[in-house]
């Protein structure tokens, strides 16, 4: 369903189906960008990022980008733009006010998260809230107070994700300086965004390390420390997770799914799938 809704406080929500390439655009406000089906490619400077339904992208105010979608592949995208003042009010509320907001984050969250432009997992509370909001808007709901309530909670969810994905992971790193830890995590997240975007290609470690601005050794050591997985294991898990979506939501034959998610050999895919989920891909599809 297509619409573009500007609220009285200048928050803006855009829902779009189908895709065509758009020229270079200017992100006028901080935005959270979701893809509910298909995938969308964003070119931001030298970075080429793809968002799929299991991830979302944050773009800061003023970022230049262009988007592209594969022809023939229907894309459903959903974008929330946050007005500067709304964001400022939220940050004050988060830092000084409502103690309840801080409950979940524990001690580490007393520092204010940044909006670093990268891809984050689209799961858990943020997913529930965005889907509820979209359903209301699709049904024509006009109550701006309620829409803003959802937007407020989307920001709470983002701050919690940031807490989980950055601060908690940084704690696991073996460095003394907190600033160094955060910087390393920021670079490791670049490695992750590279894998999120190129998961179905042959990824070599040198390219991955270059994208993350780390040496290969440094990348391998710190990635494992922070996430408990090697980049290769992370990639395999990502491919398997995305194969679940394809098996459930599309009718591509299993052999085709294998190559779509970047595996070369069907038998090793089936073996990995079975070890991981205790079910074969075919049986999973039948039960889904």
């Amino acid at each position, binding site marked *: 369903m297509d619409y573009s809704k500007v609220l009285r406080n200048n928050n803006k929500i855009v829902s779009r189906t189908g895709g065509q390439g758009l020229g270079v655009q200017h992100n006028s406000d901080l935005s959270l960008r979701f893809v509910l089906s298909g995938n969308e490619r964003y070119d931001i400077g030298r970075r080429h990022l793809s968002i799929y339904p299991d991830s979302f992208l944050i773009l800061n105010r003023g970022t230049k980008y262009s988007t592209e979608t594969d022809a023939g592949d229907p894309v459903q995208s959903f974008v929330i733009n946050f007005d500067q003042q709304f964001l400022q009010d939220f940050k004050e509320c988060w830092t000084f006010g*409502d103690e309840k907001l801080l409950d*979940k984050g524990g001690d580490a969250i007393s520092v204010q998260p940044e909006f670093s432009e990268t891809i984050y997992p689209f*799961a858990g509370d943020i997913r*529930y809230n965005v889907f*509820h909001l979209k359903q209301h808007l699709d049904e024509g709901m006009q*109550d701006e*107070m*309620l829409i803003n*309530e959802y937007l407020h909670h989307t920001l709470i969810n983002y701050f919690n994700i940031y807490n989980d994905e950055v601060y908690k992971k940084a704690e696991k790193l073996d460095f003394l300086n907190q600033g160094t830890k955060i910087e390393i995590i920021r670079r490791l997240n670049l490695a992750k965004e590279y894998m999120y975007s190129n998961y179905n290609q042959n990824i070599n470690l040198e390219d991955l390390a270059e994208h993350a601005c780390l040496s290969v050794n440094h990348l391998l050591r710190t990635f494992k420390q922070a996430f408990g997985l090697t980049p290769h294991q992370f990639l395999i898990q990502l491919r398997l997770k995305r194969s679940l979506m394809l098996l459930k939501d599309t009718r591509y034959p299993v052999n085709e799914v294998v190559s779509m998610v970047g595996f070369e050999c069907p038998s090793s895919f089936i073996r990995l799938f079975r070890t991981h989920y205790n079910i074969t891909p075919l049986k999973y599809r039948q039960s889904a």
Partner: protein
Amino acid sequence: MLVTVKTIYQMKLKYIPVYTADFDSQLNFYTQKLGFKVTGTMTFHEGRESTVIRSDKLNVALLVTNNDSLSDKSNIILNTADCLNDYHKLKTAGVFFCKSPAYLPAGLVAEFMDPAGNRFMLLEERNYNE
């Protein structure tokens, strides 16, 4: 005069909390005398686990929680498909919320009071393992 309001909420009664200072004997009473079965655990109050017990004949489950002070806890847990929506609409209708929506391991929860001060919990259960 009794005024009925057209309901726009999707709330339903799903859990009844039971608080006890002697958890084991309370649980034994339900399972051995009343025929309830333990079906799992849930966390509604930070740091405190509740045991879910069900009986074949009932649509509502009991939540047995070990707790020394019995005051200040909700007596009724209402389930909703969309907590923020119902919270907003109830609040607009003048219902007093003592806790605005917050995230717990069980999902999104808000708490409101009736005029006599009885506490109700409005719960949207969420599955975080998907």
